[in-house]
């Protein structure tokens, strides 16, 4: 009888221990449109982080080490905003995640942010650039303080990176083409995030001794920009300043190549950041250049190892969404410092943190947005040269190659 009772008690204790060991996993919800490139990268970056951390034993939370478990949350945000809010609600109530990372489409992330803040969960953004997300933090700190943006920098700061790169391209044009005042045609997709950028470009370029010959604003989904390119050629532009995030970026690169325009495309072209760009332009997208985040150059000591390992594991290069890797690392540092996973304790720690990630050296301002600095959070600039994406800016980073003009 006594043996039986001992056995049951021990058995129960063992089960309890096993149960609580499993329950001790830190659950992180990775949010993104998983059927598309952005979500795939969100997940891939997170997988790399999880495997690395768990292999090292997990995260030190106070006295014990806890493993992390990442939960795939398909928001389908590109096709439906209510789907995204349903998905995040499911992740919080059903899957009981402790932290949320990811997001891409700004309209959807704004809605998801509300749900996350309702539940006081830390939400690290890894894709949406809209300023409103961080303006909310300033407007109502107590409610929105659980939001931090990990990537990209906000739209206005993208402008600063753009001008920095444009300066060096402009200098190259002045020496190569012997033109004192390069002509710039602005080709921006019609979207809320580009408005402020376009204005900033129109105001700043004359000060940089460049002439703006016109501004064209096709739809982000436009399948044909020959009309715009014809007009741009007619205006004798040297640089086509692109502010594009949709598939129009592919059409633009391809048609510029097909029509052998002598102008070079630079700016933001999100499609051109992807590996599939060369195939999508059927090999015609040569010389297209854009701001980017990841390349095999030493932005930080962690960049090259991360990009190499990512390429080896997933057989393709990471896009900026893979900075979920950095986001998890930020959480780890904060948790280990605080000794707990309580969001209220982690918020002040992240606010003061300087985090050396693979994408950037990140620090945050009062609105929980990234602070811009060249070589730290400015990103890099890449150009497609004969089928390869080559990094050419900032020049002081190791691994940069020269920028090429179309002949």
């Amino acid at each position, binding site marked *: 009888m006594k043996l039986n009772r001992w056995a049951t008690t021990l058995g129960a204790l063992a089960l309890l221990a096993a149960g609580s060991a499993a329950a001790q996993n830190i659950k992180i919800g990775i949010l993104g449109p998983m*059927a598309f490139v952005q979500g795939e990268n969100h997940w891939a970056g997170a997988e790399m982080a999880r495997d690395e951390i768990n292999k090292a034993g997990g995260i030190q939370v106070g006295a014990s080490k806890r493993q992390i478990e990442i939960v795939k949350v398909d928001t389908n945000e590109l096709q439906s905003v209510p789907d995204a809010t349903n998905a995040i609600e499911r992740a919080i109530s059903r899957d009981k995640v402790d932290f949320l990372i990811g997001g891409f489409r700004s309209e959807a992330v704004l809605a998801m942010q509300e749900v996350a803040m309702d539940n006081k969960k830390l939400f690290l953004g890894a894709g949406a650039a809209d300023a409103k997300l961080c303006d909310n933090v300033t407007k109502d700190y107590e409610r929105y303080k659980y939001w931090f943006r990990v990537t990209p920098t906000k739209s206005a700061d993208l402008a600063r990176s753009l001008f920095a790169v444009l300066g060096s391209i402009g200098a190259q044009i002045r020496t190569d083409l012997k033109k004192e005042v390069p002509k710039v045609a602005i080709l921006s997709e019609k979207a809320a995030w580009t408005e402020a950028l376009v204005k900033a470009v129109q105001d700043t370029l004359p000060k940089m001794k460049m002439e703006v010959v016109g501004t*064209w*604003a*096709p739809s982000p989904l436009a*399948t*044909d920009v*020959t*009309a*715009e390119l*014809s007009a741009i050629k007619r205006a004798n532009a040297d640089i086509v300043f692109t502010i594009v995030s949709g598939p129009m970026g592919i059409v633009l690169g391809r048609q510029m190549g097909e029509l052998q325009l002598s102008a070079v495309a630079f700016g933001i072209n999100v499609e051109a950041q992807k590996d599939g760009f060369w195939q999508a332009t059927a090999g015609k997208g040569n010389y297209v250049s854009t701001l980017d985040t990841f390349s095999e150059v030493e932005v930080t000591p962690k960049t090259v190892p991360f990009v190499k390992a990512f390429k080896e594991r997933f057989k393709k290069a990471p896009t900026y969404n893979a900075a979920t890797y950095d986001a998890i690392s930020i959480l780890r540092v904060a948790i280990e410092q605080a000794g707990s996973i309580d969001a209220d304790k982690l918020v002040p720690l992240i606010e003061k943190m300087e985090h050396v990630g693979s994408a950037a050296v990140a620090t945050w301002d009062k609105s929980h947005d990234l602070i811009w600095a060249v070589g730290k959070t400015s990103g890099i600039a890449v150009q497609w040269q004969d089928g390869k994406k080559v990094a050419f800016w900032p020049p002081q980073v190791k691994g940069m190659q020269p920028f090429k003009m179309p002949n």
Partner: protein
Amino acid sequence: MFQDILVSGLVNGGVYALLAIGFSLIFGVARIVNIAHTAFYMLASYALYGLLVIGGMPLVLAIPLAVVAVVALSLVCYKLVIEPVRQHESAVLIATIALALIFQESLLVSFGGSFLGIPAAVDGFVSVLGVRVSNQRLIILVVVAATLAATWFLLYRTKLGLAIRASANDQEIANLMGMNVNRVAMLTVGISVALAAIAGVVVAPVFVVDPLMWLSPLVTMLAIVVLGGLGSLKGSLIGAFIIGYVEAITVFAVPSGAFLKGAVALSIMVIVLLIRPEGLFGVVFEEER
């Protein structure tokens, strides 16, 4: 600027014409509003991608094969899905929407959501009136002209064409006259989808291929057929070029309003319809009791 508008409108109008005529044909004869019309166009593009890029087939083989495959699929769909519910107009609408969604999702699952590029048949460009036009676009124009000529020949110089036009005019009497109306409808479906598929294979190298590419041509095409008059082939042709030119003018006259070209085209359609409800060349059908 005029040359740009002239050439740009011509090329885009030609592409729209191919799509619009196919859609108009099927509505005129079978009274089916085929929402999946541009979805077949998308399928043809993907079929070409699969055969050409993945399969490595030569272009001369890949193009006809892609077109034939898509037409065959459409006939199967028609037989299985559309024909049983032909009596209920709204059911047909839903059925075609559902089909289009099925195609979209199947392509999304098999090829993924990213954008694909198909190499052009002939590289390079030509300068027309000082405007650079890529060779592929000239090919499109040639194909459009040839296809339209062939369609005209079929409809106005062959017995089958006579049957098709008769069925479009008055199905009951055509049936009484001994024409197999069901067979005629099926053949019309085949011809109509063939037109869409041809559009898909010539246009795919010029545009970007992705599983959602059927949505925006759908809206433009609907605007065109409605503007020209549902069921009128002449109307669709003229409507296509009108819309093509309206879009070109919008882009050139208002560069920072280029994104509005869709909305402008649709507004014109709405205004024309208010003035002349059956479209420019449409025939008002008697209410079928």
